[in-house]
């Protein structure tokens, strides 16, 4: 009698593997971001893989929000901010002179810390950005109603709101509002979704719902998430980047790798200190 090995050993390997160059969503090289004379982010180089959830974690003020906002040029809205270095998106530097920031933001969508639906109906919230960006319904393509439904379904909100699409987006609960904001973002068909602490204003259950949604969306989109809650990063992400402040309070990248490696076997003592709660 031979021993039939019908059960395969398909447990993920724990070897540290960084994303390969051929499947990158965004690549930042030697990024320095300043607010006036203060350098908020210092010399960060980061390769973010496609169709994965990448989490940016670190203590408050480490520049993780600034970093994620630089990925779709939202940091430009802060007066006095400027940036050195490159951010490549599809091989093109999004900070090049010829690039239109509006177009960048359309391709790289963003979900914010506090749910911020427009004071319009649920339907309008989803349709607004799409309409703005030249959504056109033709034969073979969805019309707006279908598209709104599709986006709300993707955001796992359809069943909850399908009977009240004309009600205000503000009438929803916090967690629902945040999912509405996600639906609104995917309605403009971005390639990358940036999430800046998307669940920090939500209760634990709503938080878990958003995290679950991120796992589902990552099959179609690349997700980059900033979170001050490292447990959330651990639960939800494939890759984790840990940032901290150096002595002149600039944000620096300490360690970047697969999430399970970062959380079970960090290479850097600062990462270890942070994730075990023995920081500083």
């Amino acid at each position: 009698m031979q021993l039939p090995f019908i059960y395969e050993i398909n447990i993920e390997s724990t070897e540290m593997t960084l994303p390969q160059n051929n499947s990158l969503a965004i690549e930042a090289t030697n990024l320095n971001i300043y607010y006036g004379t203060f350098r908020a982010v210092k010399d960060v180089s980061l390769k973010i893989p496609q169709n994965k959830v990448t989490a940016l974690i670190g203590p408050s003020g480490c520049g993780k929000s600034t970093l994620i906002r630089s990925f779709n040029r939202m940091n430009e809205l802060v007066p006095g901010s400027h940036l050195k270095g490159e951010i490549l998106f599809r091989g093109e530097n999004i900070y090049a002179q010829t690039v239109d920031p509006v177009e960048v933001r359309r391709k790289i969508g963003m979900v914010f810390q506090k749910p911020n639906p427009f004071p319009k109906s649920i339907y309008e919230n989803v349709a607004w950005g799409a309409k703005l960006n030249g959504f056109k319904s033709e034969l073979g393509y969805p019309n707006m109603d279908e598209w709104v439904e599709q986006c709300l379904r993707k955001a796992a909100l359809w069943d909850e709101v399908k009977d009240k699409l004309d009600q205000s987006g503000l009438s929803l609960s916090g967690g629902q509002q945040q999912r509405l904001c996600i639906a609104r973002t995917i309605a403009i068909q971005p390639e990358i979704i940036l999430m800046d602490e998307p669940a920090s204003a939500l209760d634990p259950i709503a938080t878990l719902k958003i995290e679950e949604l991120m796992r589902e969306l990552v099959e179609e989109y690349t997700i980059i998430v900033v979170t001050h809650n490292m447990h959330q990063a651990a639960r939800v992400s494939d890759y984790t980047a840990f940032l901290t402040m150096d002595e002149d309070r600039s944000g620096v990248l300490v360690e970047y790798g697969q999430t399970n490696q970062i959380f079970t076997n960090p290479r850097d003592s600062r990462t270890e200190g942070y994730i075990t709660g023995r920081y500083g």
Partner: protein
Amino acid sequence: MSKPKLKPLFIDNLKLRNANANRWKIFFQVSTYVGIIFLTLLLLNILNQTFGYVAISSKVDPDSLTKEGVSLEQLSKKELITIIQDNVSAGLLRQLQREMPLEEKSQSEVYDIVVEKVFESEVSATWTLADSLMNKVSIRAEAAEKYPKADLVFYSWVKPHLLSNPQSSNPLNAGVRTAIFGSLWIVLITVIVAFPIGVGSAIYLEEYASNTWFNRIIQTNINNLAGVPSIIYGMLGLAIFVRTLEPITSGAIFGSVDPTTANGRTILSAGLTLALLVLPLIIINAREAIKAVPDSIRQASYGVGATRWQTTWSHVIPGALRGILTGTILAISRAMGETAPLVVIGASTYIVFDPNNIFSKFTVLPIQIYQWTTRPQPEFRNLAAGAIIVLMLILLSMNAIAIYIRNKYRKY
């Protein structure tokens, strides 16, 4: 999911949208500059009217009276009096001496009498500053042709005389002294009445009043009063202070009746009317200031056993004083600029005597400006422009005081 997933179609419309955005941005920006231009135009217009060439014709040529090239202004009082005595009729001289002996008047007053009574100088024509600067030659020609006897001088309508002289029917001599005194008297009464009541009301509403329907009505009422047109306050003042309370406001029951008037159109009426007018402003500003005092300070005070009034007096009022004073000064400058209610309660327009008590008749600076502006003679309009500059300087310095107070006092 029942329906098949379809990918949407997006048309690239960015160029159009960006072009649109730029157009509107320019519109917004231009509008802002237009707003600033309005202000500039307003100020320039006033300056334009205040300075410029004036053709002055006199019955007696001033040059004939001056000796050895000494100009009239440089003459001593005594020499000027001699000129007057030599040149005016005996009746007029007596009249002048009756008002106040010439020797007791100041040099500039005597000078004015010389100009008015001896030369009988009159303004024949005026030109604007812009005209005077750009068309000097043609103005000279025009003046020489139309007013051959007149002197063409570059004239400033804002001059020391404007401040020191009382009202006069000759624009060259007319001044705003009585009007400024009138404004000061009235503002004094306004502050004495409105400040304690306004601050008291603010303290009541912020520190004492509970949220009952009655207190809510008081609050709504104050907000509404702040929006009532000033002319309505004038009518209220006319009906109550001038008519109903006439015995008091005319001073009749105090036996202090101004011989020139026997009605209630006095400084007291005007001051009380303006007090009602600025009361809501003082209350609203003071409430904001009191609100800004953090609650923790009140709690700390109560925590060491202070009563409500002790807390208010020792902590809340000092903390809010900055805002209260700033708000009050702004309210006063509003009162100084008000015209309509005082016209309605019947400010006298032609007064040459300074007001000397609260039962005097009065005029104020804005009314002077109003009256001069409505005169048909263009030179009075120039005079009004000069008075406007005086008024604006007073208001600006009050604002400067407000800013100084805002910066000086500590802030919570």
